[in-house]
Structure formats: structure tokens, C-alpha cells
């Protein structure tokens, strides 16, 4: 019942780590922090190249954030990486006060977001981070769908002053974009007029798969990549509402506070159309194989297809 394994997959974490090394050459003041997960987050690549500007502070996520803020307040661009559950969860109040309240130029790059962490289980499967981070004033939030977007987004965040949160998955993902990324822009990955499927992160590939299947039946589906969660491309969502009449949102995140909730509030206030959210219900995850977990928690291609069908029925596009 899982989607077939996609052909060309790349590691978003490697893309991040390699980009850090490139940025380190052009920005000699840049500093990188990690909290004992540098092999997993791939900051180890920067650490090997620039050991004097790399600080592994051990299992100390809250104070990694405050120290990063201290260096940022001294004029530097600082990257700080760990798993999403620690970056957004363990260190939430440090991110809030020391980074956002202080407007510190810290880029939090959190890996292992969402259910696809897999075997580590529910303790480590962070499905609340997008909501926590997008609720913070002054915070930028980005959830790329593939390695090329990760490379561009890492550079864009480096070049944009202020706090930022970049959420990456553990798993390799198929390349689905041309790597174009601009803050506040939701690229249209497929054109369509019967329905819009908007997605973030690992779900973008599934959105494209469902659009392809529906397309075979003559249904025209627009696919939007909502990588720039904040700032959010409200005009693209409102255009989708006007031109396609219904929006299905996919995310590997709690539906309570994620991008589905965001799309629903934007459309409800400005151009009400039917919106459905496919994401994690009000639940913690559990151990399992990454892609099987997505299916188990209601994020399967089949379930997305069913939800899309319901919306198409509401629109009178199918019987």
C-alpha cells in the first residue's frame, strides 16, 4: 500500500552540510553549533573543514541556543543544528527569548523532523515543531521538499538577517523541484484548475504522485510547494482558491497547528473554499519503517487520493 520507492533520491541533510562548508568559505565569521549529533545533522562536514569555528556543545540544546544568540549578537551569522524534537521542543523558550526576542541572527537547522524518523519512535518524531516555530514573532520557517531546495534555502537564510528555522527530514527524498527558492513564494510544481494540492517536505513528492494519478483520469491538479511556511505566500493560496475552488494540504506534522491550519485560516478569512488537511492527527508516533509510518498515520497516497476525490465531488468535478 506504500507509494513505490521514488527513483532519484538525495539526502537533504548532506545538501545542508555541504552548503555549510561552501558558506564557511565565503563568510569567514560564520559559526556552527551542534549538540552531539553532528554526524546525523551533517554539521560534521563544516566541523572538519573549520574546526576553530565549530562548537559541539554536547547534549545541551537549550544553552546551545543561548550561546548561539550571544555570538549572533556579536555580529556573526550562526547556524545551530540538532534534531527537531530538541531544537523546537527542548530549547523552545531559549529560541523564544534569546533568539527571537533578541532578534539574534541564528539559523536553527533541525533534522529528523516528523514521523519518518522511524525506528526511534514517538519520543523523537517531532510533529509539533512547525506550529511552535511559526507562532514565534520574528521567526522565519522553511520546510524544503528536496535536496536542491535545501541548498538554496540554506543560502537564502544565511543571506537574510534574523532568526530562522529550517526543518529537514532524516530520509533521502526524490528530487522534485528545480531548486528555486524564495522566501514568501510557493512555487507551482504542477499546473491545474480542478483542485490544488499544497504540501511541505516529504509530502510534496506524494502530492505530485497523486496529481499524476488523477491526471491520468483527466483531472487537472495544481501542486504548490509551501516550503516557505513563514513568510507565507498568501497570494498563491488565494489564487489557488479562486482558480481551483478547493485545496488539499499535506504535511508530516500535526494538523492542529501546521500548514493545513494556516491554509484553512487564510482561506476562511479571505476567500472561503473547501479545504482538507492530511497530516498527523492529535497523536504521537511510534516505532516503524519510515514510509510505513506515513501510511499508518493516514498520510498514504491512497488516503490522499480519497481526500482529493471528496473535494472533487464537492466541486462537482466527479460523481
Amino acid at each position, binding site marked *: 500500500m506504500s507509494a513505490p520507492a521514488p527513483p532519484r533520491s538525495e539526502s537533504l541533510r548532506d545538501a545542508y552540510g555541504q552548503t555549510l562548508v561552501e558558506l564557511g568559505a565565503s563568510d569567514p565569521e560564520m*559559526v556552527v553549533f551542534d549538540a552531539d549529533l553532528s554526524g546525523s545533522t551533517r554539521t560534521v562536514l563544516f566541523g572538519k573543514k573549520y574546526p*576553530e*569555528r565549530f*562548537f559541539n*556543545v554536547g547534549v*545541551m540544546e*537549550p*544553552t546551545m*541556543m*543561548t*550561546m*548561539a*544568540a*550571544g*555570538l*549572533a*549578537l*556579536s*555580529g*556573526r551569522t550562526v547556524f545551530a543544528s540538532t534534531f527537531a524534537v530538541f531544537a523546537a521542543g527542548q530549547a523552545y*523558550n*531559549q529560541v*523564544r*527569548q*534569546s533568539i527571537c*526576542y*533578541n*532578534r539574534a541572527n541564528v539559523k536553527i537547522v533541525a533534522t529528523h523532523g516528523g514521523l519518518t524518523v522511524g525506528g526511534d519512535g514517538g519520543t523523537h518524531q517531532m510533529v509539533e515543531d512547525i506550529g511552535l516555530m511559526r507562532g514565534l514573532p520574528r521567526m522565519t520557517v522553511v520546510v524544503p521538499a528536496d535536496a536542491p531546495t535545501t541548498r538554496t534555502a540554506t543560502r537564502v537564510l544565511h543571506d537574510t538577517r534574523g532568526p530562522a528555522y529550517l526543518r529537514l527530514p532524516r530520509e533521502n527524498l526524490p528530487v522534485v523541484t528545480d531548486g528555486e527558492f524564495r522566501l514568501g513564494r510557493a512555487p507551482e510544481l504542477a499546473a491545474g484548475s480542478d483542485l490544488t494540492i499544497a504540501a511541505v517536505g516529504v509530502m510534496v513528492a506524494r502530492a505530485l504522485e497523486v496529481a499524476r494519478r488523477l491526471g491520468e483520469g483527466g483531472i487537472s491538479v495544481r501542486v504548490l510547494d509551501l516550503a516557505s511556511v513563514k513568510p507565507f505566500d498568501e497570494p498563491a493560496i488565494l489564487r489557488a482558491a479562486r482558480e481551483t475552488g478547493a485545496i488539499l494540504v499535506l504535511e508530516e506534522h500535526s494538523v492542529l497547528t501546521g500548514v493545513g491550519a494556516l491554509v484553512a485560516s487564510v482561506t476562511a478569512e479571505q476567500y472561503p473554499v473547501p479545504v482538507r488537511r492530511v497530516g498527523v492527527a492529535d497523536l504521537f508516533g511510534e516505532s516503524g519503517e519510515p514510509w510505513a509510518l506515513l501510511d499508518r498515520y493516514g498520510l498514504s497516497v491512497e488516503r490522499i487520493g480519497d481526500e482529493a476525490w471528496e473535494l472533487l465531488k464537492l466541486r462537482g468535478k466527479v460523481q
Partner: protein
Amino acid sequence: MDAAASPTELRTLERAAREVRRAILEMLTISGSGHSGGSLSVTDLVTALLFRDLRYDPHNPAWADRDRLVLSKGHAAPAFYAALAVRGWIPREELATLRRLGSRLQGHVDREKLPFVEASTGCLGQGIGMAVGMALDGRLRGANHQVYAILGDGECQAGPTWEALMAGGHFKLDRLTVIIDRNGLETDGATEAILGIEPLAEKLAAFRYQVLEIDGHNLGEILDAYARARATRDRPTAIVARTVKGKGVSFMEHQHAWHGKAPSREEAQRALAELPPLPGEEGRA
């Protein structure tokens, strides 16, 4: 700045500290809310920095080589504001705006509102981490400025405080001076009754700090400790300053109830009567 203070200098600082205490009481009375006890306990430590030890150009707060002062116990903001006013860096009248809508003088210090604030603080256990980051930045630049972090003793119950202290010791940040306002009381009572932090000096030593225990109201001892911290290499310094919560006002001293409370007008009159300006104060402030 490292030379020992002359008796005249000490008298000047004592007069300034007295005036800072008076300003704290006045501003808190007008505000009607704020932290009296911990502002009065930290007054001498802050005054010694702003009037003597802190290398700082008020006309150029962005000077790269300035010393940094991070008020990790951000609720002692009134002491900082009062010292700035008595020092002449902000207008004395501005103290009346404490905690008012639109004021630069937020309930807890805010770097976006007021120059001279290096880091916005308030949630405890975070300012010390930012100070450690600033000291690490100075190390990377080969800079020689001092980074001061002022902590409360209740703040020493917070896990992140010890994370940051551990990092300061690990990285041998010898330009970092941690000042702990050891007044013994927190909001609900005595630290040792609520969650004991002793033996504090031994803990700090175990975290690889040079530890100096001083009377936090004796300006001579304070200046001596600051000088020793500045002269020390290869490890950071922690100054455990024994202080009295509500220092200088008889009915506030040693009373945890005055942690987060401002005096009424009548109470302020009694308090100010106990703290008359010291002679030689004319023309100052």
C-alpha cells in the same frame, strides 16, 4: 582601571550607589510594580561596573571593544536603569516611565528599546548563556574585552544556568566574569529552604572557575574582585557576592515578600528617609 581605588574614589562610588538606591525606590513607587529586593541587593555590584570598571563609551554603544554587561537576572532592571540615570547616560526623568506603555524601560531589560542593553533577558538561565557566547566571540576575535554576567541566586536552581557555566569553564573563557547576587532569597522564600544551591562556591570551583567570595555591599571588595577577574587568564571567574535582599531599607531587608513588590508612597517616604543623599552629592545626578 585595575589600580586599587583611592579612598576618594570609594567615597564617590558610595555616594553614587546611595543615589542609585534612591532612584530605584522612586521609580518603583511611581511604577507601582517591579522588583525592589533584588534591585537593592545588586545595586553596589552594578554601580561599581557602570561608574568604574566597565569599559564603555555611552556615545558609541556599538564600539567593538567595549566590555559587555549582561543582566541575566533581568528583573533587576530598575537597578540598571537607575544606575544609567545617575551616571547621566539616560535622563533622570525617564525613570518615571518604568513599565509604562511606550517606555524604553521595560519590566525586564530590552536591547531593542534601550541602548546599553547587550541582551534582552528576563527568563532566567538564558542571559548567562548569551554572555558565554559573547565571551566565545571575543576569544575567536582575539579581543580583550570583559564580559560580565550578573545572576540571581534563585537563577542558580535553573538547569540551563549550569549548562552555560559548564561551557564557560570548558572553553576556558577567561574574559567571562560571572557575578552571583547571593541574597539568599527568591520569590517564595529562602533558596536553601526551597531548593538548596549550596555549596555554591565549591560547585563553581568544580565547574572550573576561579571563585571569589566577597561582601557584595563592600565597594572595596567588589572593585578588588573585578580587578582580579580581569587579570586572570585560562579560566573564567565567578564572584559569589553575599548581599542583603532589600539592602538599605530596614523593612525590606531579608524579606522575600519584597522580591517582586514596589513600595507605596508612604513606604517610599520612610525608605528614602533611611537613605538620605550622602554629603558631597550636590551637583551630581
